[in-house]
């Protein structure tokens, strides 16, 4: 029997995908904020990629100044609520909390952060606004964490900002790629609406930019162009049978799930290929959608998985089984997926090799490939003079985000190769400053 029964209504979906970090009420926030020690040179701040003054906002919450707390958070990171909910806080701020060294539960920084930011989002309190117009224009491509963060910062600096987004909604992976038990669509979009109302940038949705002509028009019209394009589709594995029905990419599967909830069907026996955080998410999600048997297949040993330990724990907790040291050879089936042929592997001196004659077939009726996302190589080729590194990442100045085409700047996954929302938010803020420095020279 599966841990979860297949959700057939929104209510059942919400129950199976209950928030891991539910919003706090005032009482819980008061009690939790009271525990903060207000460390000197606080390790939590250093552990936060966006450098939020955490002890300060916790103290503000404790003294009943939630608005001030939200301001402290947003001053450092425009994705305040989103990061509070989706950040791997266990390995960032909360992992750095000194209480860990005393075997005391660390402060729930993420939930406190969401508490303060949701307060101002719900009240609509105005904390920021656009700067004095400076007559210059910046185009932002991609309305994900990088693009929206850059748009906010640029508006604050007085630029006219137009954002172009291929999809129908803002916030990128926050609404299309993060597991549903980490954040809800409603709160994600509420934060986006709040930011847009404060800063007043324009967003064109369903507006993919795919041709050199379109880019040329942007180059003509705008003083600078910010690339917050993220990553592309799931990598093809190049295996026989990969085109069978019910063999899907994790990114595509999760995007469907975030939009259609219980209306997304999952197999009874699911195999997830991969050992990263996305694989953990896809496996957990399959189980929560009612799959009876979910196997996480990874080509190396358990210890070598890229996923955070707590993410694997989450998957294990919902009944996901690990299958290690196996590499997929072929997706089996007649039209529909019926299994995966694996070969066992061994790791010697860090190199993985297949064990001859060890093939076996693991039956399943769905395969989810969580084996990394492709870079947006085709798009990047449209930018004249733009260089990428050997892994397809945009090459840009570490401080200013300026690419090898001086009119173009970049942040987020397309630059860092794929990291957290918080990294994109922090990088984009810095890059917006880089654009400002470039345009005011």
């Amino acid at each position, binding site marked *: 029997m599966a841990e979860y029964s297949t959700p057939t209504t929104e209510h059942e979906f919400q129950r199976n995908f209950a928030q891991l970090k539910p919003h706090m009420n005032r009482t819980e926030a*008061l*009690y939790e*904020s*009271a*525990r903060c*020690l*207000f*460390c*000197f*040179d606080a*390790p939590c*701040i*250093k552990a*936060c990629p*966006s*450098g*939020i*003054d955490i002890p300060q906002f916790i103290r503000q919450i*404790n003294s009943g100044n939630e608005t001030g707390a939200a301001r402290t958070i947003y*001053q*450092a990171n425009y994705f305040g609520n989103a990061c509070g909910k989706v950040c791997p806080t266990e390995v960032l701020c909360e992992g750095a909390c*000194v*209480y860990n*060294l*005393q075997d005391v539960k660390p402060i729930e920084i993420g939930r406190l952060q969401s508490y303060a930011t949701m307060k101002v989002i719900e009240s609509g309190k105005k904390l920021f606004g656009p700067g004095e117009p400076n007559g210059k224009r910046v185009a932002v491509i991609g309305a994900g964490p990088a693009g929206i963060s850059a748009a906010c910062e640029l508006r604050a600096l007085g630029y006219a900002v137009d954002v172009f987004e291929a999809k129908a909604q803002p916030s990128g992976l926050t609404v299309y790629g993060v597991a549903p038990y980490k954040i809800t669509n409603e709160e994600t979009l509420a934060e986006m609406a709040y930011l847009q109302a404060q800063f007043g940038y324009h967003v064109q949705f369903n507006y993919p930019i795919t041709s050199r002509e379109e880019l040329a028009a942007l180059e003509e019209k705008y003083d600078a162009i910010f690339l917050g394009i993220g990553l592309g589709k799931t990598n093809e594995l190049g295996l026989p049978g990969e085109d069978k029905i019910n063999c899907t990419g994790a990114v595509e599967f999760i995007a469907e799930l975030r939009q259609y909830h219980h209306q997304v069907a999952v197999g009874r026996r699911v195999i997830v290929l991969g050992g990263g955080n996305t694989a953990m998410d896809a496996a957990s999600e399959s189980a929560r959608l009612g799959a009876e048997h979910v196997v996480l297949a990874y080509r190396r040993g358990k210890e070598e998985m890229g996923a955070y330990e707590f993410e694997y724990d989450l998957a294990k907790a919902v009944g996901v089984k690990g299958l290690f040291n196996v590499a997929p050879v072929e997706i089996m089936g007649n039209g529909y997926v019926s299994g995966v042929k694996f070969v066992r592997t061994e790791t010697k001196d860090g190199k993985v090799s297949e064990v001859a004659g060890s093939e076996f077939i693991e039956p399943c009726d769905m395969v989810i490939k969580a084996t990394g996302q492709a870079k947006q190589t085709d798009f990047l080729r449209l930018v004249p003079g733009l260089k990428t590194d050997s892994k397809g990442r945009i090459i840009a100045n570490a401080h200013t985000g300026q690419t090898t085409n001086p009119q173009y700047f970049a942040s987020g996954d397309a630059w860092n190769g794929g990291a957290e929302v918080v990294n994109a938010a*922090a990088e984009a*803020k*810095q890059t917006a*400053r880089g654009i400002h420095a470039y345009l005011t020279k």
Partner: protein
Amino acid sequence: MPDLSINFAGIKSPNPFWLASAPPTNSGYQVMKAFDAGWGGAVWKTLGVPVVNVSSRYGGVNYRDKRLVGFNNIELISDRPLADNLREIEEVKKRFPHHAVIASLMVQSRQEWHDIVRQSQEAGADGFELNFGCPHGMCERGMGSAVGQEPKVLQMIVEWVMEVAQKPVIVKLTPNISDITEPALAARRGGADAISLINTIQSIVGVDLDRFAPYPIVDGQGTNGGYCGPAVKPIALNMVKNCAQHPDVRLPISGIGGIENWRDAVEHLLLGASSVQVCTAAMHFGFGIIREMTSGLEQYMVEKGFNTIYDFVGKALPNVLPWEQLNMKYKVTAQIHEQKCIGCQLCYTACEDGAHQAIRLNAGTRVPEIIEENCVGCNLCSLVCPVEQCITMERTDAGTEHVTWKERTEAGDIPVAFNDEKAGGRHHWVPAPTAALGKERHKTLPGKARVLSGETDVPAEA
């Protein structure tokens, strides 16, 4: 099993825990319930000419997530007819003959005092407590603390009471006075059998930031109230000590102020109280707290080998001295136990900003280091440290010398001029004032965030 019973100036009680005269002793119902729960005695809510109260009567002081570390009230004495109270006192005494029921009294004229003492006596009260402490409302009418602040008037009223009292008389003192022993001495001169202290401290417990009015708010306005609760214990302990140590007071003391658990009670007893009274804690948590108080007291007595309360009443008094008699050769130095340190660095910033710059930070570790030559042994670091026994104060003098300020004064060995060579801090190193400017700014504010918000050019720390 140790014996918890007391005989307080002739008032017998199965244990030293009494409910103070206050809302929890407003009725026979409450007092019976308290005795049923295990309380040893109760001082009845003050009897007199019944009052009329306002609505909205209490205010609280919360600290972070802790409710009611301080509490105040603007309620007056009993608003119930005297006959009702006396009938219930009689009923309680019949049901609980071995528990202490003390009638708290507050009236004005000599005749009234005589009448109310006689009537309470007839009702079966084991003793009287004269309320000379209430610091709000009643004092405006010349009673309560208005009497407690006027030793001559206090003495006169005690004398009136003693003319008719056949049961022990306790005088309850107000702390709203500069020297608590003055009214204590007046009580003794008037012939009182005991004193109790402290009554509440005149207070404004907080101000509503939106309504611009003090708590508790009565139709948009407020008045000063009487402050009590855990926060007042240190003030109470000091006043209890002052009365207990005064050579001429020599009266049993009922300790009141901030008693919430057995530890608080033992502290009052060690400083000379021989019964204790509790109000706020019972108002906050109910009468059930008595179980923890008696069991804790019992356990303490077993561990210390005390058979009766009187084995340790006043036991700390010989160790409470005037400052000038403390040993100036005694020296403690802070020691950080590295393996326990969690690296919060509160000790560092406390010493750096609030004490003597005797802690340094070293690169590569979050464990601070004590600069022994700068440490004056003030305790601050050990007080702010959130880890038990992580910072300890270790004795560093040989323990062979003993010199007091008094002795130094007598020997002419004290600083007397503004720039005296003998100044205690003369050779104590302090950094140059300008060394403070910009110091650790990147640590007290998050560098990264400030750089990103364009506030500053200070480079973000790696």
